[in-house]
């Protein structure tokens, strides 16, 4: 009887371990994917800038079009609907929130949260920017777009695991100045 009980206990323990292993592996891959999404969103947003300013040697991002491109890429790549709620085929469960920071030759830093302007303030190149949500630090010395995505909690099937929100940041820097 004792080997049976010990065996059953071990089977339950191993099963939980395998479930955790699978969930964690998927999570690691989705975390990497989230980084790629932030990269892609920042790169897409950086394609839009003011041509008149550019002809005078200044790089000033077109925030309106940049925001459209960033929102489109995040929605498309994370499989979200128009309210940024994950669709059935998305890995994520919670509504996605994202912040975008524009630093450019207008010397005005603009911060958008979910596409809405929430902060504008002057800045000078040559400072260390810190995105506190993602612990992302970047030296701002040229026009840069930083995208931070908060994807909410990852999926773990074991109920006693209580993960925190998954947040990734990426910056796209224009080095042509």
């Amino acid at each position, binding site marked *: 009887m004792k080997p049976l009980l010990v065996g059953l206990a071990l089977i339950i323990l191993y099963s939980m371990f395998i479930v955790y292993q699978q969930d964690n592996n998927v999570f690691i891959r989705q975390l*990497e994917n989230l980084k790629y999404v932030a990269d892609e969103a920042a*790169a897409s947003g950086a394609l839009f800038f003011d041509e008149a300013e550019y002809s005078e040697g200044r790089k000033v991002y077109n925030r309106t079009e940049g925001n459209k491109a960033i929102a489109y890429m995040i929605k498309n790549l994370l499989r979200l609907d128009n309210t940024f709620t994950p669709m059935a085929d998305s890995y994520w469960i919670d509504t996605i929130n994202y912040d975008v920071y524009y630093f450019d030759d207008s010397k005005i830093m603009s911060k958008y949260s979910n596409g809405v302007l929430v902060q504008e303030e002057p800045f000078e190149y040559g400072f260390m920017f810190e995105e506190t949500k993602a612990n992302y630090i970047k030296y701002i010395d040229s026009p840069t777009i930083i995208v931070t995505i908060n994807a909410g909690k990852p999926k773990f099937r074991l109920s006693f695991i209580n993960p925190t929100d998954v947040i990734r940041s990426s910056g796209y820097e224009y080095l042509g100045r």
Partner: protein
Amino acid sequence: MKDLIVLCAVVIILLIFPLQYALEQQTHYNISMMQKYVHTAKEQAKQIGEFNNDIKKELIDNLKEQFKIEDSEIIINTSTTKKYRPSYDSFTTESIITYEVGVPIKKIIVANKFWGIPDSDNQYIYYIKGSTTSELISP
């Protein structure tokens, strides 16, 4: 004697778990590498506006070697026309390159026959789907 028989049965079942662990890690590693290969191919396609044959061939070669599969088993669907960078002042989805890459994962559970699961039910196709904005300047 009874205890010995029970112990043997339990040990046989318990042996499957380390094997499943190893298989899961192998599959995870392969898929992670696939993720990197697809990402690299996407970055290349972004520069030239499409997944051309060279990019696809390199991707297939990498996946073939990683997963030990044949060319014909790899699924690659991409947008069929060359895409160009959007104008500086207007975002349009016409500049979006789409892609879908699939590879067969041929073993989900180890010792599947021990559990009565046929090989045909013990596999699936893993897809990576995505899109990117072309950076190719319009001629």
